Structures are given as structure tokens and as C-alpha cells.
């Protein structure tokens, strides 16, 4: 530096404003680069595997435990068949058209019920979250409805709607809507106060305040409510299909109760496995949405 032959401006002189700004630019850029040191990215296959192997291990442990109970001779094998007998039956079932027709009916009920519950839940949530007084008044009532076992609604549902699709729909909606409404209310309640202040200074009011701040801010909580609502809807639907059997329709619930009447335990366990898998798959879908939001917003420490 000291041997630089170029003529430098006198270091004692005050630097020109433009030179100062250029230096500031450079320093800021340098600091930014240092602070944003790139994180290491993992290979996507390795990431999928890191999620899949614990699940597979858990399934294997569950099946092994089932096999151990069978081997212990606790029950006759026609009462409690082992995995070796049940899994071929499961395969046989899922290759039959009747199974797929039943599954289609069940899923149609689930989707319609969940959709209606979402509409009802959002409407109730939107109205109740409007004011603190309404939240206090109805918040605990909605939470109370959430804890009520949906099967307890069936006697009333059957009185009101007889053995019909409406009876099942009624209970599914009552099961799911409170969770969805609660998710929305919690989301509105927990909009960070600092963001509310920032929004007010910006001039966000009324509709704009909801559209640009409160609605997006409550999205993670709303998705959590949907996820829980789905779990309740699925449970209520299964209870409904076992209790409300309509004419000659076949659904998963009907298949399950017929298998019980005929003491086909292997069939019964196959259907139960199907019900479990559907529940898990849809829960995982909601989980994906939830994770996507968290990553997008940086809510996850990575």
C-alpha cells in the first residue's frame, strides 16, 4: 500500500461526499454478504429418506408387536389373525370393485361434510372474531362443542333426519366446524400487535386491514384448525357409517360392520387398516401445507 506509485489524494483531506457514499455502499454490501453466508442444501432424495425411514420403522414395529401378540396364543387365530393372514386378505379386498365403490361413497361423504364444515366454521369464526365480547361469549362454547364426542350427537341426528345422508352430514359438520372456527378465531386473536401497529401507521383500516393483515396473519392457525377439523370429521364419519346404515348402500363403515357380523376378523382388520391409512395420508397433506407456510414465512428455525 505504502509503495503504491499512483498519486492518491491527501489522506488527511475530507473525502468527497460521493466517495463517502461509495464506501458506505461497499461496506454495507460486504456486511450483507457476510451475514448471508449460504446454508448447505441437502440432496432431496436424502431429505425424503430422512422422513420416510422413521415412518417405515414405526410401521414395522407395530406389525411386529401385532405378530408377537398372535404368537403368544392369547386368542384363537380366527379371532385375532396375524399379519401373515390379514395382509393377503387386504390385498384381495382392494382388488375388488365393491371395495372401491364403498370407498368412493365414504370419501364423497367425507369431502362434502368437510367442505360444509369449512364454510360453517369460517362463517362462525369470522363473525365471532369480530369483537372481543363475542369471542369471550362464544369462544368457550365453541371449544366445548369441540370436546363433545360426535357419537353423542347421533341419537338426535337420527331423530331429526332419520337414517339418511343428512344425519351423517349433520354429525360430520358438528364434529369438524368448531375446530375450524376455533383455528380462525385464534389466528385473528394472535395477530402480532407489532404488525397491527405497523399496519395502522400505514393506514390499514376496515376491509384493507382484514385483507392485507389479519387474514394472512391468521393463515397458519387456520390451517391448523382445518387439520384438526379433518381429524374430527373423519372420526365422526366412521361413527356415522357404523350407526346410520342406509338401505343397500355400501360404504367403508358398512363393510366393516358386515365383516363383524360374519366374524371375518381378517376382513375387519383390513378395513381398519384402510381407514387408518386414509386418515394418515390426509393428515400428512395438511402437514405439507402447514410446513410450506412455515418455511415461506420463516417460522421454522432451520
Amino acid at each position, binding site marked *: 500500500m505504502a509503495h503504491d506509485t499512483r498519486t492518491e489524494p491527501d489522506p488527511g483531506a475530507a473525502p468527497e461526499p460521493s466517495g*463517502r*457514499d461509495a464506501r*458506505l*455502499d461497499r*461496506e*454495507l*454490501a460486504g*456486511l*450483507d454478504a457476510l*451475514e*448471508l453466508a449460504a446454508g448447505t442444501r441437502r440432496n432431496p432424495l436424502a431429505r425424503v429418506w430422512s422422513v420416510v425411514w422413521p415412518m417405515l420403522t414405526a410401521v414395522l414395529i407395530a406389525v411386529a408387536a401385532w405378530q408377537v401378540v398372535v404368537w403368544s396364543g392369547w386368542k384363537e387365530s380366527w379371532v385375532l389373525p396375524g399379519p401373515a393372514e390379514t395382509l393377503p386378505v387386504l390385498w384381495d379386498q382392494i382388488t375388488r370393485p365393491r371395495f372401491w365403490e364403498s370407498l368412493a361413497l365414504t370419501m364423497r361423504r367425507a369431502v362434502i361434510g368437510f367442505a360444509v364444515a369449512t364454510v360453517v366454521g369460517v362463517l362462525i369464526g369470522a363473525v365471532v372474531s369480530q369483537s372481543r365480547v363475542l369471542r369471550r361469549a362464544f369462544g368457550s362454547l365453541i371449544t366445548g362443542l369441540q370436546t363433545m364426542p360426535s357419537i353423542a350427537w347421533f341419537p338426535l341426528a337420527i331423530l331429526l333426519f332419520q337414517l339418511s345422508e343428512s344425519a351423517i352430514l349433520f354429525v360430520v359438520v358438528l364434529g369438524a366446524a368448531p375446530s375450524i372456527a376455533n383455528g380462525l378465531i385464534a389466528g385473528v386473536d394472535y395477530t402480532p400487535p*407489532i*404488525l397491527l*401497529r*405497523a399496519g*395502522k*401507521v*400505514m*393506514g*390499514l383500516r376496515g376491509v*384493507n386491514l382484514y385483507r*392485507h*393483515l389479519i387474514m*394472512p*396473519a391468521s*393463515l397458519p392457525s387456520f390451517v391448523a384448525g382445518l387439520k384438526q377439523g379433518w381429524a374430527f370429521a373423519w372420526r365422526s364419519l366412521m361413527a356415522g357409517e357404523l350407526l346410520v346404515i342406509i338401505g343397500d348402500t355400501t360404504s367403508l363403515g358398512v363393510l366393516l360392520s358386515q365383516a363383524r357380523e360374519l366374524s371375518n376378523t381378517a376382513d375387519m382388520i383390513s378395513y381398519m387398516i384402510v381407514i387408518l391409512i386414509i386418515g394418515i395420508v390426509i393428515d400428512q397433506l395438511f402437514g405439507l401445507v402447514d410446513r410450506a407456510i412455515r418455511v*415461506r*414465512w*420463516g*417460522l421454522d428455525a432451520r
Partner: protein
Amino acid sequence: MTEAVQAVPSRTAAVRLAGVSKMFGTGGAALLALDKVSLDVAPGEFVCLLGASGCGKSTLLNLVADLEAPSAGTIDLGGARVALMFQEPALFPWLNVTANLELALKMRGVPRGRRRARAAELLDSVHLGDFAGKRPHQLSGGMRQRVALARALALTVDETGGGRPTVLLMDEPFGALDAMTRDLLHDEIERIWRERGLTVLFVTHNVREAVRLGDRVVLLSSRPGRVVQEFPVPMERPRRIDSPEVATLAASITDRLREEVGRHGA
């Protein structure tokens, strides 16, 4: 623009507080946060409000920003709007950096077609032009605070008609940053203030920061907050926070501040 216009009773003030008091709660539990605070800020002036904890600095900014109403006294902004910057960036995490600025511009009446370009300009002015598509969490704390500064600058734009001026309120905006980043941001805010001719009311508890930045440092007492003394800062800009002149004035202000704090221990 940089010369401190002393408070003269005339309508030249950008911000005029006259006998402003703020009381929280009622009856026996009532707390007097601010007691008859009077303060004039001239257009284009950079005023630092300095005080220990509980001096009601943030309350004062909330009053000026019309987020709360004073219990007594008047606040006259002469029709100006405010932009407020907090210690936290308070950016909307669901929007990327550009969209955060565009929302602020939208609220100031900038038509859709011009928002993208205005947002890019603002980002360039805080040296973040390359980060337009990033989300807040992908930036460092200092960078987020610069985006927050750009958003506050976006709020100084007014195209809703009338072209009202804007007062920039800053509530310990660099309090959560490391010293290195903070020093750079001091240069940055000073440059932007100079270029845009902004009126700034800057709250801090850091005495050197106040002397580094302010045309004038207003010292507030605690519980209740009152104006204790005003210190004009005569040093020429740009100043260095570690220069002897800044240190000397900061030391005398600190002594006065300690005296004030000491009264509460007696």
C-alpha cells in the same frame, strides 16, 4: 436544511407539541407517563429524544403517530402524515421485500402500475436492490431493518392528493443491532435524511447515538416524562460516533441523565 432552527413560537414547526400529558389507567393505579411536554421540531430537523427507561419516549411517538390519544395538550402536525419505524422490523412475513414496500405505496395512493418501479427505487436507496424477491426471514437483522426503513420512506410518498409532508418517527430503530451494523446504518439514515430533506423524530436511550445523529438532543426525565434540557449539537456532519467531540458532549449529557436517574433512587 441541517441547521437547527431553534424553537420560536411561529408556524414554522413541522411538529408542535404543546403541554402534552398522557395518563394510563385511572384512580389510584393511574400512571402519569408524560407530563406537559412541549416541543417544536422544525421542518428538515433531526431531533433525538433521549431518556432512561420509563421516560415515555415510545408513548410520545405513539401519540404523535396518533396510535394513542393524549390525556391533555395538543399535537399539531400541520396536516403532515407520519411514518413510524420500530425496534423490530415488523415486516409482513407472508410478503416478499418488494411486496412489503408495494403495500405501503398502495396505502399512500401510488397507482398499481408505478408501484413496482417505486419499490425498486426505495430498495436501491437502502442498498438492497439485489434482494427484492427475498422474504424477510431470509435477510439478516440489519437488512430487515433497512427494508423497514425503506417501507417508512415509502410512507413519506403521498399521492392521495394534496402532497402532504411526512414526519419520520423512529423508535429505537437500531437498538437490536450489533455495533458494526448500527454504525453503518447511522451513515445510511443520515445520508437519506440529507438527500430527502426529511423531518425526523428519533427516540433512543443511547447517548452517543443521539449525539451522532441529532441536530438537537432533547433529554427527558422518567416517571413522569418531562423535558429536562435540550442540547444543540454544533459539530459538523458527517460525525463519527467514536470522535472526541461526540464523546465529550455525550459525557456531559450522560452526567445530566444520571442525575435525573439518581433522583429515583433517593
